């Protein structure tokens, strides 16, 4: 071959020597770029839903006191902006020497649902869905099988052949929900309360699936609470208004109980079926019940070791 036979004549703007290999390479590069864009596209959503500060916020247990103060100030400002409510968000820590335990007298509970309503209001739940951490199950007498119960009963209670089983978070000592969390956004604190860092939760709902008591709730949409109905007395790990897409749960009203007060559901109970206290205090009401009443726990066979007892008398 001679070089003279390839003159530098002007050609159309096409890729020269466009081989099959190059075509395949180009196609896969395009596919790869497309897949990458698709993969990071949720970030655009994230950028719209959360501020940079929220995006950069670290896990609750790793926050320094100054960072915590900043986070709380930001959350209070957000509550003002989104809900037009002046709230105070505290960071209530466990009281040393306490382990909270709940007991319910099923002979007395008549299923009126006042506890459900009190929880709804106290914990700033979504008004549209009547969300609450408590579910009262109407059970046929003679069984403890929760599958046989119903939560949709209405009318006058108690009905003759039924008893009523209020179920909420049992604050297990072996919490399955904590075990399954892939990001450690939920954990058990020293006073026995299982809490959620709502800003660390990724909303995978593994915990909701793992809980044998149906105690966890998922925020499918932004909770709607009218400004004048917002409970301004809030805590970071408790009843502050949760963002959309995270899991939430009963905290034994830690914003009340860690300040020595009784939980809202107990105060609302008109029948006096609910008893709350510190199991480490030998003189407490709850200890007297555990020592003198026939108490039992739900789904004992699962080994979750609930801090929630039921009794008949």
């Amino acid at each position, binding site marked *: 071959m001679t070089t003279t036979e390839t003159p530098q004549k002007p050609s159309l703007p096409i890729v020269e020597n466009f081989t099959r290999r190059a075509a395949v390479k180009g196609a896969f590069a395009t596919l790869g770029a497309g897949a990458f864009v698709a993969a990071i596209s949720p970030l655009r959503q994230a950028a719209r839903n959360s501020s940079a500060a929220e995006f950069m916020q670290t896990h609750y247990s790793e926050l320094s006191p100054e960072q915590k103060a900043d986070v709380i100030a930001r959350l209070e400002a957000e509550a003002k902006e989104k809900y037009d409510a002046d709230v105070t968000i505290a960071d209530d820590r466990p009281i040393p020497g306490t382990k909270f335990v709940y007991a319910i*007298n099923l002979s007395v509970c008549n299923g009126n649902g006042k506890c459900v309503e009190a929880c709804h209001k106290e914990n700033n739940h979504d008004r549209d*869905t009547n969300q609450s951490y408590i579910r009262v199950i109407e059970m046929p007498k003679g069984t403890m099988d929760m599958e046989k119960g119903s939560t949709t009963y209405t009318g006058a209670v108690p009905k003759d052949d039924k008893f009523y089983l209020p179920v909420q978070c049992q604050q297990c000592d072996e919490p399955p929900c904590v075990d399954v969390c892939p990001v450690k956004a939920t954990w058990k604190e020293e006073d026995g309360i299982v809490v959620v860092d709502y800003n660390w939760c990724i909303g995978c709902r593994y915990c909701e699936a793992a809980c044998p008591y149906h105690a966890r709730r998922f925020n499918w949409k932004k909770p709607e609470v009218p400004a004048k109905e917002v409970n301004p007395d809030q805590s970071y790990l408790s009843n502050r208004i949760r963002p959309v897409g995270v899991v939430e749960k009963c905290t034994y009203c830690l914003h009340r109980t860690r300040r020595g007060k009784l939980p809202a559901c107990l105060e609302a109970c008109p*029948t006096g079926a609910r008893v709350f206290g510190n199991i480490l205090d030998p003189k407490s009401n709850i200890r007297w019940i555990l020592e003198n009443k026939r108490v039992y726990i739900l789904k004992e066979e699962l080994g979750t070791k609930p801090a929630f007892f039921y009794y008949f008398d």
Partner: protein
Amino acid sequence: MLRPTNLIFAATSILVVFMIAVVVSKRAGQDGLAPVAEDIRSGTRQELRPAADTGSSKASTTSATTRTHPVIIRQPDGPPRVKLTGFDPQGRSGEVACSTCHSVRQPNLENKTPETLDEFHQGLVVNHGKLACYACHNPEDSDSLKLADGTKVAYQDVMTMCSQCHGPQATAFAHGAHGGMNGHWDLTRGPQMKNNCVDCHDPHSPAYPKMMVGFKPKDRFNAPRADHHDHEGAESHDDH
């Protein structure tokens, strides 16, 4: 021969030995500290013990140090007053004490139901065992109650009277396992308010009344699914 590898080996071994030494000394330090910590702990225990002892000798000081707030049991205001339906010439509606009528009437100790009365109290619903009126009401002083042995009890102390028959409930009440409460579980931080018997139970008809269910959460899986007509894996029905 000074090769770089030899130098590195020497440096690493020196570092390892040094680290071991540090760890061992730290352990030793902890061992040394442990008895001190134990002393501190036992010291506090001993400090606590005399305090508790003085507390038991002086009950008031204990209550001041450990139980700063009381458990307040609500009480009735006093003997019931009967509202009169009529008005006097000045337009006032009167209220009279039980003794206004009962001090001049002979008590019928046998009477058990309002049906046998020809005047007053006819509308009263009484469903409290087979008790006679004067099992609880005091025939000598109608503005007070009486125990089974005849001891006079003020209306404010009605719980004393209830407790003579309802002992298990009274025991449970004393331990917070019966009757509602409000306020604080931790009495060092605030008081606790408890209901009394007649706050929840009508003394004449003490069975707890039925209630209406007012509030229901709308669980997603309880809501009817209007748009959902795919019954794969579900029970079939003929509605559509």
